């Protein structure tokens, strides 16, 4: 009887032990998930939730009714308005038949894209996903090129998409070249190079609103500091900001002035950390300065260059402060970027339209970013 009782107790103990072990094993398995959930919730709340809400907003109209407001589902009406409706000219621009040069550029780009695509499809690395991605990229790049050439041809007018692309690509190209030039100069151990390192960094420390006001004064031919020069040149009664391209140039110069230091400081660090042995070896082999730069220095700083360009590109697509303060998006809508258009649309309480523009910007930045990473950066860093 006693032996039977003891054996039952032992069994119960074993069951409890097994249960406990099962529980602790389960707890060990799920602990990671449990601990990560608060972070996931915070990320969802701060990032995904606004994205979903703004997606819904972009598919709706806001209406003020008695006692509050209502958000009515409107399908793709806001996107239709931007791409095919009354906002098309504002958003995409005035599309005309491209000029002969425009056609040449378009055909060259499309031919290059198709050649690259065929090359990929024939290669051994070809996969379904890769092919699909490249076909989509070819289509989108071709469309963007068509938009660029047909809005920049005589009689056309660039909309906010094209203006933003110009700000990004022209601005970043200039910033990179100037930043690299200044960085190369600073590494030459010239007298005062330490002082200039600090001076070159100053524009980046100034708030963009301050930069915009400063350039507003600089471009004022009537009251600005360059007034005597403008008057001497007989341009006292002309204005940068009255001409669409003058105003765009003013915005780009301001942006280049402010962000060149960022390129400069990163490229300076890259130049200073490059392997001296390779340069010395090239010198021993009789390479001149240009050959050293082109064949030794540039390949070494390319990975850093592609990263810094990617960071600036993502940031530059969101340009808003400079055109808003410097020109208020004008004259007309000449200097309006996509972000500024979204802001102005939001300000007029068209929340749906504003969200639709923001989503179009998100698509554009994501596409350009992914294409850049896949087609440029990966190749450069793999070399």
């Amino acid at each position, binding site marked *: 009887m006693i032996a039977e009782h003891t054996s039952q107790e032992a069994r119960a103990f074993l069951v409890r032990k097994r249960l406990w072990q099962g529980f602790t094993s389960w707890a060990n398995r799920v602990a990671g998930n449990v601990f990560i959930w608060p972070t996931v919730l915070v990320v969802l709340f701060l990032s995904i939730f606004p994205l979903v809400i703004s997606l819904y907003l972009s598919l709706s*109209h806001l209406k*003020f*009714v*008695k*006692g*509050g*407001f209502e958000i009515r589902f409107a399908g793709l009406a806001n996107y239709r*308005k931007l791409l095919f*409706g*009354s906002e098309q*000219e*504002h958003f995409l621009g*005035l599309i005309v038949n491209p000029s002969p040069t425009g056609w040449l550029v378009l055909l060259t780009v499309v031919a290059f894209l198709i050649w690259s695509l065929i090359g990929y499809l024939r290669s051994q690395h070809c996969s379904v996903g890769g092919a699909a991605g490249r076909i989509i990229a070819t289509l989108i790049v071709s469309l963007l090129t068509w938009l660029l050439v047909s809005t920049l041809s005589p009689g056309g*007018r660039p909309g906010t998409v094209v203006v933003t692309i110009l700000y990004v690509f022209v601005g970043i190209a200039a910033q990179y070249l100037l930043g690299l030039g200044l960085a190369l100069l600073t590494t030459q151990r010239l007298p005062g190079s330490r002082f200039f390192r600090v001076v070159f960094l100053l524009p980046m420390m100034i708030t963009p609103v301050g930069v915009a006001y400063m350039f507003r004064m600089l471009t*004022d*031919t*009537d009251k600005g500091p360059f007034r005597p020069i403008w008057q001497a040149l007989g341009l*006292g*009664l*002309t*204005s940068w*900001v*009255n*001409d*669409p391209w003058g105003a765009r140039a003013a915005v780009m110069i301001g942006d280049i002035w402010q962000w060149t230091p960022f390129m400069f400081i990163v490229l300076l660090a890259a130049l200073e950390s490059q392997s001296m042995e390779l340069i010395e070896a090239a010198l021993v082999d009789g390479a001149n300065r240009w050959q050293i730069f082109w064949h030794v220095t540039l390949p070494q700083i390319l990975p850093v260059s592609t990263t810094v360009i990617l960071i600036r590109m993502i940031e530059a697509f969101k340009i808003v402060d400079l055109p808003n303060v410097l*020109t*208020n*998006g*004008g*004259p*007309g*809508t*000449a200097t309006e970027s996509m972000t500024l258009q979204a802001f*102005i649309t939001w*300000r*007029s*309480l*068209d929340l749906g339209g504003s969200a639709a523009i923001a989503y179009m910007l998100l698509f554009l930045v994501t596409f350009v970013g992914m294409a850049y990473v896949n087609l440029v950066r990966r190749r450069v860093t793999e070399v």
Partner: protein
Amino acid sequence: MKSKVWLLVTWLVVIALLSACGPAPTPQVIKETVVVTKEVEREVVVTKEVEVAVEVTPTPGPKPFEGIEVNILTFTGPQIAEPLQRRGPDFTALTGAKINVIVVPFNELYQKILTDMATGTNSFDAFVFAPQWMVDYIVPGYLEDLTDRVKADKAIEWEDIAPFFRDFSATYGGRIYTIPLDGDFHMAYYRTDLLEQAGFEPPKTWDDYLKIAAYFHGKDLNGDGDPDYGSCISKKRGAQAYWFITDFAASMIQSKGTSQGTFFNTKNMEPLVMNEAFKRALELYKETTKYGPPDELNLDVGDTRSLFTSGRCALSIDWGDIGTLAIDPETSVVQDKTGAVITPGSTEVLDWETGKLVPCDEKTCPYAIDGVNHAPFAAYGGWSGGINAAADPKVKDAAYAFFSYMCQPAQSNVDVTIGKTGFNPYRISQFLNRQLWVKAGMSPAAASNYLGAIEASLASPNMVLDLRIPQNQRYQGVVLDTAVSQYMAGEITAEQCMKQIYDGWEEITEELGRQSQLEAYLNTLGVQK
């Protein structure tokens, strides 16, 4: 426990001491000069001064709004916010209510007010804004009906407010929702000395305006050796400039009286922009830029006013502000050199049926003066105070008392003569009492000229009423402003501009309902269906 008791006793003593430090309530009697004026002829002013004692503090009783704070939202000053901020402390001394004036840029004011009330945030108790926007605030029930308060308020002297501002700007659907603080009309300003020297008459038509502007453009107009400008008109996008194109267009579109309207066809709500008159208006407006400052497309009204008062412009189109800014001895070099006249008109007007311009005659222009059709534009309607219906009742009372105080002749008769306030005359007594203006620094002739221009506009049977249909801010502040600024920048042609406005306005009308928008438009024009 003992320490807590000591702490409590200490706090009570401190509070008692602080209370004792406050000023003892003593009755204040202020001697105020009341000017009673009777105008015999336009230039002759008869003045009788009477000293009366006004008791401003009914002490020793408690102040009626002691401890109450009123948050008032308006646009970034200095104008408009300045008088509110300056008179706030005086009002606090009188009533105990503290006035907090919060400012936002002009292009954010409309939506800031709307979103504050619509989202139930209600962080502002009252607003000073454009009365043309009131329809968007009244329909959803956000604005307080002030009719009973106004009727019970003798001090506001409601009947002294000019009928247009009292019955149109302040009233919606027969009820009063705003208190006028300002009277707004567009006028043409000119340099009297320059025109006299050159033998020009003040501009009667837009062609005259352009001729005078072309003559003076590039000449030194203020003696500083630098070339100056023939015309200065604010043309900045997203600012207070989008009303000016209507001055040009209305003089050719509206010729048969106020109820004809200038924005839409009263039969079907079709925008009146796809016609020869609007095209001509765009061309004239653009031509003024040739004689303006180089960065005119980026100038707000504050900039063009400064240019005019610093003697750099021969002509300008503006609200009443230039008239009073010109007499400020600290900033103006054109004191007694500034003339004002009803906005120029046209000798050709639109045939609504054909969309073509036809010459003015008795039939086409029944209100023409010397063969010129003038259509003075009551743009904006004058800054006015409205109260948030969701505010605390006591705060609403305090807000109303403040607006009433600002509107009462004792305050407003002074404020409308000060340029930096941005307030222009809107009371009958302010037009009749020239002495106010002489006292502020105008010569009797200049006062008559300035007030005469406003009176001529106000009395015109062909006055243009500003758009006051639901979402008028989208029609004008977004669609019209964007298209016209693109045209001025040379980005689009006149035809493209007209089409863009037409399509944009039609889109809003369709979205909000054609019939309801048409009814609202007809109601504002006073047209009986």
